[in-house]
């Protein structure tokens, strides 16, 4: 064995030892991690002590499991300022909630207006509804993915059935002016659906003040719950009896009838719910409420702004999305000249322990708007737990990759 080979082996061993277990998690737009310890405790407690089927039987374990699920309803109601917790429908995820809303409301011949940067969780159901005879208009956004409200106003016409908009782009973090879109929708008699997958728990959200008729949220992102949780808030102006449910089945109520009940939340909650998951969600939302959404937003934006400043100064790095902090959430998209996003993603993970998401982020229309289709971008989404040192290390990693 040559001395050079020995030295190289020693160097590799020392390098790997120094890098051992380094995890810089910047993928909170996909799912938040780590979760607060009380979320894990609530889930374990549910499995160990409250393990009945929520809302099915009359014994104490079933009732106690039901209480855990109901607690989650109250926590979410407090977070989004929902007057009636029974109008919160729990689902598997935001996609499931969006499908309940879109397929429940839109019929053949109805017209739907949406933005040009939506996630596939909105675009794919709309495409299917379009094939079934609905008219769908996607209003193009500006090159930085911000929305032109005048173009939106022109697209919404008297008789428009539904206006569907994301609260913030999952690619650039650009916030949509939901209050104004809501006013435009209501002025034309349309219902207003908001996809809050990226903003729930990260941006203050008051469904009543913002005029949101339907709010789809994810439980495992900003709400800090586990995967397999999400929901749909249905406002008082929505005629839910006229909405066709996506699933029909056992609800533990009105069991003598074969027709799906009209009562909420049962109309849209068939089958055994995710008890342990919802117990975890309740704990996650309580954690968020304890910290305060404004404080969470300030902390996450500080990390995002440090990232943006560092990336803007790095040679060969292109940043996307709106420049002003107030118009964004903590999602930062960029590309590195001469490097494919997949190569950069692999090196960030393997060499630097930086976990992020690269590619199209399930939102091809946002990337078409940015001019980054079909290659996509590298996305950093710092969460609540990102330390200053993590942000600095991630920036050094990008600089290293950009240089050589």
């Amino acid at each position, binding site marked *: 064995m040559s001395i050079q080979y020995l030295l190289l082996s020693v160097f590799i061993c020392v390098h790997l030892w120094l890098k051992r277990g380094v995890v810089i998690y910047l993928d909170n737009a996909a799912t938040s991690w780590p979760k607060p310890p009380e979320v894990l405790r609530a889930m374990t407690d549910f499995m160990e002590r409250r393990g009945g089927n929520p*809302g099915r039987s009359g014994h104490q374990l079933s009732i106690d499991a039901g209480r855990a699920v*109901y607690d989650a*309803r109250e926590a979410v109601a407090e977070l989004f300022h929902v007057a009636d*917790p*029974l109008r919160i429908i729990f689902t598997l995820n935001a996609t499931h909630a969006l499908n309940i809303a879109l397929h429940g409301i839109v019929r053949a011949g109805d017209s739907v207006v949406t933005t040009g940067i939506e996630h596939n969780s909105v675009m794919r159901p709309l495409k299917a509804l379009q094939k079934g005879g609905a008219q769908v208009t996607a209003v193009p956004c500006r090159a930085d993915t911000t929305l032109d409200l005048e173009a939106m106003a022109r697209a919404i016409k008297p008789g428009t059935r539904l206006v569907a908009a994301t609260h913030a782009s999952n690619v650039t973090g650009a916030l949509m002016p939901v209050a104004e879109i809501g006013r435009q929708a209501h002025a034309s008699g349309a219902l207003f659906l908001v996809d809050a997958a990226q903003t729930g728990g990260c941006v203050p959200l008051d469904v009543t003040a913002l005029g949101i008729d339907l709010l789809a949220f994810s439980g495992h992102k900003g709400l800090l719950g586990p995967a397999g949780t999400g929901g749909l808030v249905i406002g008082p102006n929505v005629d839910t009896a006229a909405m066709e449910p996506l699933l029909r089945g056992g609800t*533990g*109520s009105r*069991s003598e009838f074969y027709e799906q009940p009209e009562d909420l939340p*049962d109309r849209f909650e068939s089958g055994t719910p995710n008890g342990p998951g919802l117990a975890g969600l309740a704990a996650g939302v309580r954690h968020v409420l304890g910290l305060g959404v404004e404080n969470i937003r300030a902390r996450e934006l500080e990390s995002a702004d440090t990232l943006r400043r560092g990336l803007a100064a790095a040679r060969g790095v292109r940043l996307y999305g709106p420049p002003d902090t107030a118009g964004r959430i903590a999602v930062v998209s960029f590309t590195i000249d001469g490097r494919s996003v997949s190569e950069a993603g692999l090196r960030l993970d393997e060499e630097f322990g930086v976990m992020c998401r690269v590619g199209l982020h399930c939102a091809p229309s946002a990337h078409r708007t940015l001019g980054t289709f079909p290659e996509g971008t590298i996305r950093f989404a710092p969460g609540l737990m990102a330390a200053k040192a993590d942000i600095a290390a991630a920036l050094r990693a990008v600089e290293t990759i950009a240089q050589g």
Partner: protein
Amino acid sequence: MNSYGVVLFHTTAAALRSEKVIERAGLTAKLIPTPRHLSSDCGIALRFGWPEREKVDMTLKQANVPLAGIHPFDAP
């Protein structure tokens, strides 16, 4: 014999909500399996002391909890 009443609901979510609302109002009640002779609607009902009937009724109505009915229920 104790004199009770039961509140019936169309959904268990409403029954669970009623428990919270009643508890916050400082009243006493207990979720029990729905007496089958009264209803087969939803698996659980809220049992309360019959003398508090009006307070229970008013508290639940003020909180907009959808009810299926309130009945006297004499049971151990």
